[in-house]
């Protein structure tokens, strides 16, 4: 069954720029839903550099990636946006007119459909997707013997499982799948792991007691008549090779950013970026806006600061689509009682 949601605005991407757009829209009484393929909000800040300091956010001499995201979430709290995480926006269709835009947005995972008056694409560097190891023919086994995520553990019961990687996902799934797998092998390029110490310890004790195997090396090729996987050829640092028998391989190499389905939405694209005007950050389709790292215009700087500014300007034009009858008054949060009421801070 697919859910259907009607709202003013759908924001594609819950990175810092998408999050701040909620605030700018909220001040203008515009409701929104945010969609992100990641299981958490924050985009690049939360995924790529949560602990690194950022020095160029106005008013914050220093804030970490995650710290900024936490503050943005606190700032938009009064507007109660709804988040749809772990969902990829697959399609965006215009079903209105240029004067009165209306859109249908669909996501993949559990197929939510949205109808809205404006869409803000805040998709940054694109959607985060699993990194695929460059192994010849790997595609031939995807979905039958090669998986980049575990959706149902039961699928791996009594299978010979090869997990590749040395981070949290690799180690977590190693200890979780070991009890149900016929035999589990973990392969990593070196004998150091970037995962929670107790999980690493658990893995090491399973290896010590002979309940699973650990190998150091890299997969060079896959064996088995496509699409049935039978084994993986592994090369060690000294150049020697051997084969591990396996029915499934789970490579966990982290995430990378890919433009994804955005390319199919009928928008103008320039080198994988969406051209916009600098007055309202609207695309070539009226009612579809693009803000943050995903857009391009003369003088564009890929900075969080710029994305915030773009969101504020886009919100002004979105207001016209959502409330065609209402005139928009310019107000400051410092002095406007009505804005302060919306923020829940007025007496």
């Amino acid at each position, binding site marked *: 069954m697919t859910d259907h949601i009607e709202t003013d605005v759908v924001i594609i991407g819950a990175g810092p720029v998408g999050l701040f757009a909620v605030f700018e829209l909220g001040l203008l009484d515009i409701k929104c839903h945010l969609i992100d393929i990641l299981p958490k909000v924050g985009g690049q800040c939360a995924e*790529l550099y949560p602990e690194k300091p950022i020095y160029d956010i106005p008013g914050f001499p220093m804030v970490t990636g995650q710290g900024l995201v936490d503050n943005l979430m606190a700032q938009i709290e009064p507007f109660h946006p709804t988040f749809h995480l772990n969902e990829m926006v697959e399609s965006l269709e215009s079903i209105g007119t240029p004067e009165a835009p209306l859109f249908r947005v669909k996501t993949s995972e559990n197929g939510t459909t949205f109808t809205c008056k404006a869409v803000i694409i805040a998709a940054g*560097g694109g959607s985060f997707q699993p990194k695929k190891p460059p192994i010849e023919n*790997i595609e031939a086994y995807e979905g039958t013997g090669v998986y980049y995520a575990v959706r149902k553990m039961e699928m791996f019961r009594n299978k010979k499982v090869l997990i590749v990687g040395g981070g949290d996902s690799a180690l977590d799934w190693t200890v979780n799948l070991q009890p149900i797998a016929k035999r589990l092998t973990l392969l990593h390029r070196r004998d150091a792991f970037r995962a929670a110490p107790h999980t690493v310890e658990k893995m090491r004790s399973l290896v010590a007691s002979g309940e699973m195997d650990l190998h150091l090396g890299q997969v060079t090729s896959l064996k088995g008549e496509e699409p049935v996987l039978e084994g993986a050829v592994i090369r060690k640092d000294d150049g020697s090779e051997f084969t591990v028998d396996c029915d499934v391989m789970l490579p966990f*190499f982290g995430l990378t950013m890919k433009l994804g389905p955005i390319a199919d939405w009928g928008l103008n694209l320039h080198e994988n970026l969406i051209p916009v005007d600098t007055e309202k950050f609207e695309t070539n389709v009226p009612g579809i806006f693009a803000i943050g790292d995903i857009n391009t215009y003369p003088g564009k700087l890929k900075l969080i600061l710029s994305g915030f500014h773009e969101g504020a300007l886009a919100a002004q034009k979105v207001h016209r689509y959502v409330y065609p009858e209402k005139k928009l008054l310019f107000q400051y949060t410092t002095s406007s009682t009505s804005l302060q009421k919306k923020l829940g801070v007025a007496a």
Partner: protein
Amino acid sequence: MGVIHVTDRAGQRHTLEAIEGWRVMEIIRDWGLPIEGLCGGACECATCHVFVAEEWLGRLYPPTEEEEDQLDTVMTQPNSRLSCQILWTPELDGLEVTLAPTGA
């Protein structure tokens, strides 16, 4: 001034002029060879992965723990390095690297 030699994914070797203090990733990117460098050299993406010619390996600073962690996210060989973590100095005149394959 000096040069670096870069073999691209099609096997073609290019000789690029190098500037002291620039990252090898930046030199490769600025000459227009297909290196992604998604994170701009912050050691966060591993899209600047290269294989360094054997005879040069020992002449580079060894990888930091941070670089090793990023290298875990790609398919490496013993001569794998992240080119954004190699600062070019005149001692590296003639450095020989090959662009690593990218994922799908």
